[in-house]
């Protein structure tokens, strides 16, 4: 871990009114140009009438008050990944703003202004934020800086080229004159920004690459940070809900009398698929809900089980799929003798610590929403659709997110809250109980994988991988689901990093009954790197080769990844003796634009209990914007992935999720957490993603370590203690 000099920037409060007013104007002025031109982020100066605001919006991302306050509007949502700080650093770097005195603000919903260039609309996910906004943010900062320099130079009647900037001031060295940005904000005259503002050379960076204090931390250690669940608009009522315990079921009958006897209960809302109780506080709502007698029409899914879903996946894996990648002649190369294996991984819930919630006030002419969500414009759109209101009549206040992990890429919760709020007079905060949060979720798909490979002379000569599972993209982003291929489902499988002449990867779409699937931290690669790196490990052992050397020999075409492997092996003491029943396992990955090698060290006792002792990660993620956050994301991502590998599984019986809370959907706790070392490799390459990769690295390195410790190959997750104890076949 690294420390930074104490600095005290701040995050603006949740009042989005100023920014909304300012940016609706910016939006009107710039139209959709930002969306169209992301390769060169256009910046337009928009002068605000003095009567309306003292703020001066230099572009959609930067506002400078006449007081000198620099506000950076961050298009990506903060859910723990440090994006408010890292994107603010990039903007402030090129703007030459005094980073100790910047304020950051949530962007309002607007695909036109704040679309994620990697995705095409406003979304935070897939470890894309720094990657996709790296150049747009630099250019936005540099354009604004150039305009400020021009304004100062005009004031002084000097050549702009003779001016420099530092700490939110323009400086004319020759005459010793200085003008603070605040004083210049009102003088920026040009309507159009410079087309090609000069960007700093990498060696000129002062903020980027230095560990910076997170801007969101102070409010998160003293209780003042406001998450979606914390909002209390005047007159707000609190509601909680129960949807049909069987997926797809409907309300048949509700006996309401019991709820109305609970003090503080104000209203029972019955919709076709859910029931909510509205009260003065959550206790009333919760007790009221428990006092209802609800009869459900369970519908078609009442007999669905996980076993049935696994059987369907297994059967589907016998079918040929859509070809995702084909190089060489795998069939021919396999004919010399093949090694085969199948793997599967379970449904997973996200279980963010902040349970799902959404506060809504539906009025005849408008709808106001308070929520923390990864897809702000989708939240606005779904509310407009349900209420029939125009998009601009739906006001969405975004908030800090108490854990997203993909769950808040979905607007099902917003939809439920709006539908309930339509029946309530005044604002209503809908809060999911933890049980409802876990049982009425969208889940990481259950995947089944079939492998065939050949090894000759200590190297892989043929590699065939068939991925079977549901398609998230087909539902979430239909245009991205092309010719039956889900690029996410095979992400981490097609970009197989090893020097193999014959590679064939296929995808078979098999949708489970009842269960809706969605992205989960690490997305496609969380599943694929586990199965790929486990099977590569199997091949190494079948070839009688050391797992690190086996990989290293076949990574000639991936030098950055090989450098990570060398560093991780060195730092982890690979090859050094370990006690009995302790093993080291390795996994490598090049996904999300980052290269990572991971070595886990784990111990298994006679009862199959696993203790993860240590994890070492070597990371090359290109330019490290905030190196301490990168280390933190890897640490946290590993814990997230280890939790899933050791403990997590959503199972279905009688059409219902069987887990309900943290007693049976377990989380890793501090007493199980290993020591973690993250070693960054310095690089001048463009930044890679970092929120997902730690999670991806966990399961394969751990499973390979457990094989080294016990000789037992774990081909499904979560890790089964009975298998490790020899009480059950693998």
């Amino acid at each position, binding site marked *: 871990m690294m*420390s930074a000099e104490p600095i005290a920037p701040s995050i603006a409060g949740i009042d989005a009114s100023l920014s909304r007013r300012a940016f609706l104007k910016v939006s009107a002025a710039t139209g959709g140009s930002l969306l169209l031109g992301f390769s060169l982020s256009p910046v337009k100066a928009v002068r605000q009438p003095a009567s309306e605001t003292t703020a001066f919006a230099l572009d959609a991302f930067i506002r400078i008050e006449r007081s000198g306050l620099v506000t950076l509007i961050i298009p990506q949502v903060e859910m723990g990944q440090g994006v408010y700080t890292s994107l603010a650093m990039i903007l402030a770097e090129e703007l030459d703003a005094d980073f100790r005195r910047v304020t950051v603000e949530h962007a309002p919903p607007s695909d036109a202004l704040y679309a994620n260039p990697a995705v095409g609309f406003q979304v935070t996910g897939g470890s894309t934020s720094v990657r996709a906004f790296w150049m747009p943010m630099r250019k936005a900062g540099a354009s604004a800086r150039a305009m400020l320099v021009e304004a100062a130079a005009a004031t002084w009647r000097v050549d702009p080229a003779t001016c420099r900037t530092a700490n939110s001031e323009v400086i004319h060295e020759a005459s010793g004159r200085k003008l603070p940005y605040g004083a210049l904000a009102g003088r920026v005259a040009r309507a159009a920004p410079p087309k090609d503002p000069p960007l700093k050379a990498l060696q000129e960076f002062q903020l980027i690459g230095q560990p910076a204090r997170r801007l969101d931390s102070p409010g998160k250690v003293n209780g003042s940070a406001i998450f979606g669940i914390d909002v209390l608009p005047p007159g707000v009522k609190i509601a909680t809900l129960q949807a049909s315990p069987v997926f797809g079921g409907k309300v048949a009958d509700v006996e309401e009398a019991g709820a109305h006897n609970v003090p503080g209960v104000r209203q029972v809302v019955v919709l076709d698929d859910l029931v909510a109780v509205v009260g003065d*506080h*959550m206790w009333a709502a919760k007790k009221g809900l428990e006092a209802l007698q609800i009869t459900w029409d369970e519908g078609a899914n009442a007999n669905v089980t996980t076993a049935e879903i696994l059987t369907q996946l297994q059967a589907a894996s016998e079918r040929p799929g859509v070809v995702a990648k084909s190089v060489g002649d795998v069939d021919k190369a396999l004919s010399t003798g093949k090694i085969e294996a199948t793997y599967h991984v379970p449904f997973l819930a996200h279980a963010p610590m*902040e349970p799902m919630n959404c506060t809504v006030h539906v009025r005849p002419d408008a709808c106001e929403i308070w929520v923390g969500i990864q897809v702000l414009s989708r939240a606005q759109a779904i509310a407009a659709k349900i209420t029939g209101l125009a998009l601009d009549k739906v006001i969405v206040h975004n908030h800090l997110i108490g854990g997203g992990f993909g769950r808040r890429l979905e607007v099902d919760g917003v939809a439920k809250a709006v539908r309930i709020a339509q029946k309530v007079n005044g604002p209503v905060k809908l809060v999911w109980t933890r049980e409802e949060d876990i049982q009425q979720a969208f889940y990481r798909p259950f995947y089944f994988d079939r492998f065939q490979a050949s090894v000759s002379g200590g190297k892989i000569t043929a590699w065939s991988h068939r991925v079977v599972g549901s398609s998230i993209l087909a539902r979430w982003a239909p245009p991205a689901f092309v010719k039956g291929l889900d690029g996410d489902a095979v992400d981490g499988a097609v970009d197989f990093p090893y020097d193999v002449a014959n590679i064939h990867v296929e995808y078979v779409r098999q949708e489970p009954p009842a269960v809706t699937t969605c992205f989960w931290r690490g997305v496609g690669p969380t599943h694929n790197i586990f199965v790929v790196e486990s099977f590569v490990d199997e091949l190494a052992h079948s070839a009688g080769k050391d797992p690190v050397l086996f990989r290293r020999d076949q990574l000639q075409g991936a030098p950055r990844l090989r450098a990570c492997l060398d560093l991780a092996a060195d730092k982890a003491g690979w090859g050094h003796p370990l006690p009995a029943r302790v093993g080291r396992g390795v996994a490598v990955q090049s996904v999300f634009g980052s290269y990572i090698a991971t070595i886990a060290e784990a111990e298994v006792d006679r009862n199959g209990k696993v203790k993860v002792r240590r994890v070492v990660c070597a990371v090359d993620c290109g330019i490290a914007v905030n190196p301490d956050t990168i280390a933190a994301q890897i640490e946290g991502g590993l814990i*997230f992935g280890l939790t899933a590998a050791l403990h997590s599984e959503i199972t279905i019986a009688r059409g219902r999720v069987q887990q309900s809370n943290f007693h049976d959907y377990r*989380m890793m*706790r501090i007493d199980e957490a290993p020591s973690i070392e993250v070693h960054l490799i310095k690089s001048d390459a463009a930044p890679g993603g970092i929120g997902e990769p730690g999670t991806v690295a966990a399961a394969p390195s751990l499973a390979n370590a457990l094989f080294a410790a016990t000789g037992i190959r774990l081909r499904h997750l979560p890790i089964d203690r009975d298998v490790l104890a020899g009480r059950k076949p693998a």
Partner: protein
Amino acid sequence: MINLRINGKVTAVDAPQDMPLLWVLRDLLGLTGTKFGCGIAQCGACTVHLDGEAVRSCLLPVGSIKDRSITTIEAIGETSNGAKVQKAWLDLEVVQCGYCQSGQIMSATALLNTTPHPDDSDIDAAMAGNICRCGTYVRIREAIKRAAQIE
């Protein structure tokens, strides 16, 4: 009406006796720094202090508190150990999403109240009731040790 001594002030609340303190703090008093995570004392997000001791407010009936002194995350920085823990949390950049950190800080402060120089097993015992889904455990451990060294 129930009188509660919260963060040094006596406050009267109109709440049923069986209502958990968590909802009194959050929904009636607007003290939203204390978080709801599970409702069954499994996650520790709702941790507050009763007379300096860490308790889970999600299962604590407000009628059972009587005249014991309640401290929440909003005021823990006014105590010596609370301020040290908050400083160490910032110095080591523990926080990610931050949702669980109110509870983590309350548990860590209570630990230092009874054990000024905790070792790893003390930390495990005191902190295992607090889940962090972002996985900040490595830094929580270091930050507690750092806080214990602050004079």
